[in-house]
């Protein structure tokens, strides 16, 4: 857990954080002579105030801040009047985006989704056969591609020979619901998710007729063994499509990759990691679910200029001998972070909504105690003969 206490010097930060660890700083020779130095608190004090000014976690749950507005994104947070020229340009942009692009895109999106529902229903009636599979693939690809056009998403796929194959699990970093569209328009996957009600639920039920997706009831989600069993059964069947999973469990703002939940890494199969990086100059693709509802988010996306992103298919990975699920998950996460140019964090994305566990504070305390005890013993050894008299 040293990693949490000695922050890396990141280019994304606004303050200079010394890459000194707790042991190094506290064991520096200084006056006093005692084993506990009253200046030991200065280390914790400074680290604490540094985290108040800029911390690694909370900023991952809001949209990435750009240095300055670049005309291409929707607007800047520190939007203040810079010049009349700029305001006019922005106004023109708004007219074009909302008056022309948005209606066009909404029409496309509705068409895409409508076609998806109708065509998959038709394919669903066919008896199970190779023809059905073939048609299902074609229908899915076509409809997802229409939806991708509806967002004017300009996607560059790299290393397509590493594309996920049947009987494997595809894992990717999660930034927004659009990730699914981006991946599904280039390959066919079985999706995993919670069964919703309403329109979403209807779409889910229709999709499953043509293609074996895995939808869980809310009650089943809590049962980890059940989830693991269904996933294992699916990958064991080599005729079924690869599963698409986002192990972070929540949307992160595309500057970093947070802790991968180990569930999908416990299953014995090949993992196909995928890194998705959105170009921040063209717009903010991150879905801040506490701020915007899904519909508002989609409208934002459809009234931006474009969504530009890169997708890297990484070489498949398997769990090695003697490696447990957590270590494997971290290894995959590092590979994705490195490829996508994202920061690799150990922190849990769930911190978006929940408090950090006490056990991490206890680890900090343990670390400090160890240092203190070492110093005490060192001093007693040096002073031993004198003190015992």
């Amino acid at each position, binding site marked *: 857990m040293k990693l949490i206490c000695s922050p890396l010097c990141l280019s994304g930060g606004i303050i200079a954080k010394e890459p000194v660890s707790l042991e190094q700083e506290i064991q520096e020779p200084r*006056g006093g002579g005692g084993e506990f130095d009253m200046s030991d608190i*200065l280390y914790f004090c400074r680290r604490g105030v540094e985290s*108040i000014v800029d*911390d690694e*976690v909370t900023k991952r749950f809001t949209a990435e801040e750009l240095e300055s507005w670049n005309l291409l994104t929707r607007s800047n947070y520190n939007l203040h009047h810079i010049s009349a020229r700029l305001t006019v340009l922005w106004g023109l942009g708004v007219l074009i985006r909302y008056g022309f692009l948005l209606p066009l895109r909404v029409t496309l999106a509705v068409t895409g989704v409508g076609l998806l529902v109708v065509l998959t229903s038709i394919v669903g009636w066919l008896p199970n056969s190779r023809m059905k599979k073939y048609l299902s693939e074609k229908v899915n690809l076509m409809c997802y591609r229409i939806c991708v056009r509806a967002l004017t998403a300009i996607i560059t796929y790299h290393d397509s020979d590493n594309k996920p194959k049947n009987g494997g699990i595809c894992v990717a970093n999660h930034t927004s619901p659009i990730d699914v569209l981006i991946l599904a328009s280039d390959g066919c996957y079985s999706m995993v998710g919670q069964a919703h009600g309403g329109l979403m639920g209807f779409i889910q039920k229709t999709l499953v007729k043509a293609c074996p997706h895995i939808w869980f009831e809310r009650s089943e989600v809590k049962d980890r063994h059940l989830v693991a069993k269904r996933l294992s059964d699916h990958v064991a069947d080599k005729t079924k499509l690869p599963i698409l999973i986002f192990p972070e469990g929540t949307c992160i703002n595309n500057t970093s990759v947070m802790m991968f939940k180990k569930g999908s890494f416990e299953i014995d199969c090949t993992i196909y990691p995928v890194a998705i990086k959105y170009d921040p100059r063209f717009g903010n693709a991150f879905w801040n679910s506490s701020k915007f509802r899904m519909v508002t988010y989609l409208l934002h996306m459809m009234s931006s200029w474009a969504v530009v992103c890169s997708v890297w298919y990484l070489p498949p990975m398997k769990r090695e001998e003697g490696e447990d699920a957590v270590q494997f998950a971290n290894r995959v996460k590092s590979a994705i972070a490195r490829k996508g140019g994202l920061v690799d964090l150990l922190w849990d994305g769930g911190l978006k909504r929940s408090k950090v566990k006490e056990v991490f*504070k206890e*680890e900090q305390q343990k670390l400090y105690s160890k240092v203190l005890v070492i110093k005490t013993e060192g001093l007693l050894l040096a002073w031993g003969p004198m003190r015992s008299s």
Partner: protein
Amino acid sequence: MGLPLVESALQWNSGILNANRDPKNDDVEFQITRLYSRFHSLDKGENGALSREDFQRIPELAINPLGDRIINAFFPEGEDQVNFRGFMRTLAHFRPVEDNEKSKGHDASEPLNSRNNKLLFAFRLYDLDRDDKISRDELLQVLRMMVGVNISDEQLGSIADRTIQEADTNGDMSISFSEFIKVLEKVDVEQKMSIRFLH
């Protein structure tokens, strides 16, 4: 796809934005803007003031053994909310001492980030009841916060006793502020209690 077009658009754009800036005010203005932006993002209730819960939402601060004491330092006596002014005042203790060269003070009083005031900030982390003395109990409390359950009461007690013995010069079994200053006279407080902004 049209990325060269984008590059030239970005260049033209930054030309417009840079035309109106005065480089002299950049540093201070930049820092204040960033800190205000940070204050605003911590303020979930959006009421212009931070509460203790807002600070505790920062994971790195929540796992810091002295987290609660540090949060306390932001809140004046008996208050539950801190506004931006108070936030800045407390953070001002951590400005590097060199920064005073850039902004020559208008008033003659000691700047908040002087060595003395930095030490006072640290002293107050120990001295909870603000009686200007660190008693054995207060020292033990801070020690307990830093080591958790990993060291026994007796051992902690003797560490506290030894510390007081070494620092206490006037025999009142507690550490006053001047005794505290003396103990830390060889420590590079300016460096350990300073936070530098990146540009």
